[in-house]
């Protein structure tokens, strides 16, 4: 069982190393095969681990496997250790399973790119980093995985390095993530200082005895890391720009796995957050704010991938909300179903983009239902699952989150409940706006141009369609793992890692479901009416402008951070660097030349002068010696 976990962790690393070292010796296609097969090997390892855990008793499902002691300083030790427990097993399956499908899809999507080998090496590196993140047995390894996924994300967003926008987006993502990494690292240092441990069990045992301030600071640091990685307000601005990367990258990193790492961290470190209830509530509030803001902004975006990216932010907002009120199993459940249907949406969007020769603007799309019938069906499944119409996956998981907010009961719970329901309405509106604009109506100019330019080649190669089909099936049935009032195998499985603080009764579940399905359908109807009347969803022009500018977050950060620091450094350059430092360096140089010119004259090269100097010096020394005595 533990062997399976190690295979799961190391197979993608082996794939990345093999592709990197083989270089030009293997064909581009072989690189794709290596990457796909090692990721599926990791999935097999994950399955072995999962069923190994399944066959054990509930009390014996936590296993820490240490390869060796990595760092030791006095009594403080950090091992190269992985933790196998129900939570990490589920995450392993999601990461390697969805990851494998997406890497497989990439073989079709990236075929013909000049740098396919580099792409697949990065993809394997990412899968390895993400698996390290979810399997890490202590906070330091978790932080290592945390940093590595950020690196892989940076490399893959900027994969098309000849496009300046892609490089800028990669830098932005890296810097925003670095803020989160820094707060996470500070929290880890604080944990070492206060509890003397970094492995999860030691930390969670030590949290009890800490002062309120320390626990709050640690929880805030971890929350900062989670917020940056999961693109929640206020560190969310990098995610829409990250859509500059290849579409499978957006599906894997910026929808299914990496951006959900923050949710994983909230659940994994739940004893810390439970000891700091204010910070935990803050996580829920941030999630609720993000899910609303992202939902509103998604209503007006024109880029097909950006709409889905804002939808991702919004859905992760739901997960934060769930983790923040202590519904851990439900949060991870939504993480899993979201990984299915959001990866599906991105991959289907990738088929569309591929079909239209890299067109991403939905104003130039339309009527693709006839040209791409199978993609249309898959996209529809993903969209309906996203809105949460039964019996598709999103219905079960999202309603469970909203119902948990209702079960909390207090004022915060009611607010979150209302925000969640409003989010469902927004989801219905923006996702069906996208669906109608892309697949319904008349073919637009992009499609017309395309069919004139060259003959149609179907919907794409098998390697692209098969993963989309599999994900469509998963999106359709993945939610049946938890049916309120009937059975809860999934949430009970996660409960062994994190006992939930709130649990909705079946009645609350049914009430929530009724309201949210009604709101979702209302959103769909609104989107359909707007589409048929050829109107926008947001008609007030001031609101439209605000949403189109993403509520001015980029402009705000520009004014708050970029411009003051640029002005300060310019002033320092002019007032300090130029006149003081540069000129003083020049003067030190010229002064040295002058002084050495004077001293050089002493070296006359005349032997007798030297002898005279020595004799004279000896005389002086003798006189001094005698005088001092």
């Amino acid at each position, binding site marked *: 069982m533990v062997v399976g976990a190690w295979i799961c962790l190391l197979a993608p690393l082996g794939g990345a190393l093999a592709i990197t070292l083989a270089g030009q010796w293997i064909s581009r296609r072989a690189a794709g095969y290596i990457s796909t097969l090692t990721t599926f090997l990791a999935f097999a390892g994950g399955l072995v681990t999962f069923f190994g855990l399944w066959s054990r008793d509930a009390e014996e499902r936590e296993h820490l496997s240490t390869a060796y002691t990595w760092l030791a300083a006095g009594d403080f030790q950090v091992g190269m250790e992985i933790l196998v427990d129900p939570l990490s097993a589920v995450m392993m399956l999601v990461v390697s399973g969805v990851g494998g499908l997406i890497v497989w899809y990439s073989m079709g999507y990236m075929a013909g790119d000049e740098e396919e080998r580099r792409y697949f090496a990065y993809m394997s590196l990412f899968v390895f980093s993400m698996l390290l993140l979810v399997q890490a047995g202590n906070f330091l390894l978790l932080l290592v995985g945390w940093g590595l996924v950020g690196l892989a994300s940076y490399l893959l967003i900027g994969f098309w390095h000849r496009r300046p926008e892609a490089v800028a987006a990669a830098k932005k993502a890296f810097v925003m993530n670095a803020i989160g990494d820094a707060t996470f690292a500070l929290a880890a240092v604080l944990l070492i200082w206060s509890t003397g441990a970094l492995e999860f069990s030691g930390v969670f045992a030590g949290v009890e005895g800490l002062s309120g301030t320390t626990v709050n600071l640690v929880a805030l640091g971890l929350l900062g890391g989670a917020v940056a990685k999961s693109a929640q307000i206020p560190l969310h601005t990098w995610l829409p720009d990250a859509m500059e990367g290849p579409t499978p990258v957006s599906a894997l990193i910026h929808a299914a796995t990496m951006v959900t790492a923050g949710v994983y961290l909230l659940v994994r470190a739940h004893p810390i957050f439970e000891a700091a209830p204010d910070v935990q509530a803050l996580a829920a509030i941030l999630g609720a704010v993000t899910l609303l803001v992202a939902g509103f902004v998604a209503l007006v975006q024109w880029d097909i991938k950006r709409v889905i990216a804002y939808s991702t932010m919004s859905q992760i907002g739901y997960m934060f909300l769930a983790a923040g009120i202590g519904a851990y199993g439900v949060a991870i459940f939504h993480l899993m179903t979201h990984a299915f249907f959001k990866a599906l949406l991105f991959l289907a969007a990738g088929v569309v983009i591929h079909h239209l020769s890299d067109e991403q603007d939905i104003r130039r799309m339309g009527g693709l239902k006839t040209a791409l019938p199978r993609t249309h069906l898959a996209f529809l499944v993903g969209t309906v699952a996203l809105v949460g119409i039964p019996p598709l996956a999103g219905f079960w998981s999202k309603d469970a989150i909203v119902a948990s907010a209702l079960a909390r009961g207090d004022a915060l719970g009611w607010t979150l409940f209302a925000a969640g329901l409003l989010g469902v309405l927004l989801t219905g509106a923006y996702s069906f706006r996208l669906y109608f604009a892309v697949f319904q109506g008349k073919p637009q100019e992009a499609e017309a141009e395309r069919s004139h330019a060259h003959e149609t080649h179907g919907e794409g190669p098998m390697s692209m369609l098969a993963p989309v089909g599999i994900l469509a099936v998963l999106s359709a049935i993945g939610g049946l793992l938890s049916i309120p009032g009937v059975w809860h195998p999934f949430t009970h499985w996660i409960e062994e890692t994190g006992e939930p603080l709130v649990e909705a009764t079946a009645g609350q579940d049914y009430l929530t479901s009724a309201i949210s399905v009604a709101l979702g359908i209302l959103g769909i109807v609104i989107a359909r009416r707007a589409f048929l009347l050829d109107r926008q969803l947001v008609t007030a022009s001031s609101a439209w402008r605000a949403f189109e500018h993403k509520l001015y977050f980029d402009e705000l950060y520009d004014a708050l951070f970029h411009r003051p620091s640029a002005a300060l450094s310019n002033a320092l350059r002019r007032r300090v660097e130029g006149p003081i430092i540069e000129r003083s360096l020049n003067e030190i140089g010229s002064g040295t030349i002058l002084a050495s010119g004077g001293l050089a004259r*002493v*070296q006359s*090269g*005349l032997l007798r002068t030297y*002898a005279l100097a020595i*004799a004279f010096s000896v005389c002086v020394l003798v006189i001094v010696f005698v005088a001092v005595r």
Partner: protein
Amino acid sequence: MSGPGVGWYLIVSAALFGIGSLGVMLRRSPLIVLLSLEIMLNGANLALIAFARQVGDLDGQIFALAVMAVAAAEVAIGLGLIVAMARRDMALDVDQASALRG
């Protein structure tokens, strides 16, 4: 202890040292400079031996022997240099061998 006191020896030693150092400082022929160096070394040797006699142990005398050995080596090198200069048709004048001028 018979013979003149240690003071006389020191006077002779100082005189030898002074003559030698004047030779080093004033003469231009490298050969004479080497000879003057020998005179300085022997002046120093005389002082060493005189003090050794006064103190009554052999350390000074042994040290004088060591100085002689070093002086012999030094003369060998110095004469070798002078021969090399002569072979390359350089003027035998220390003032002209001033290529190390700063």
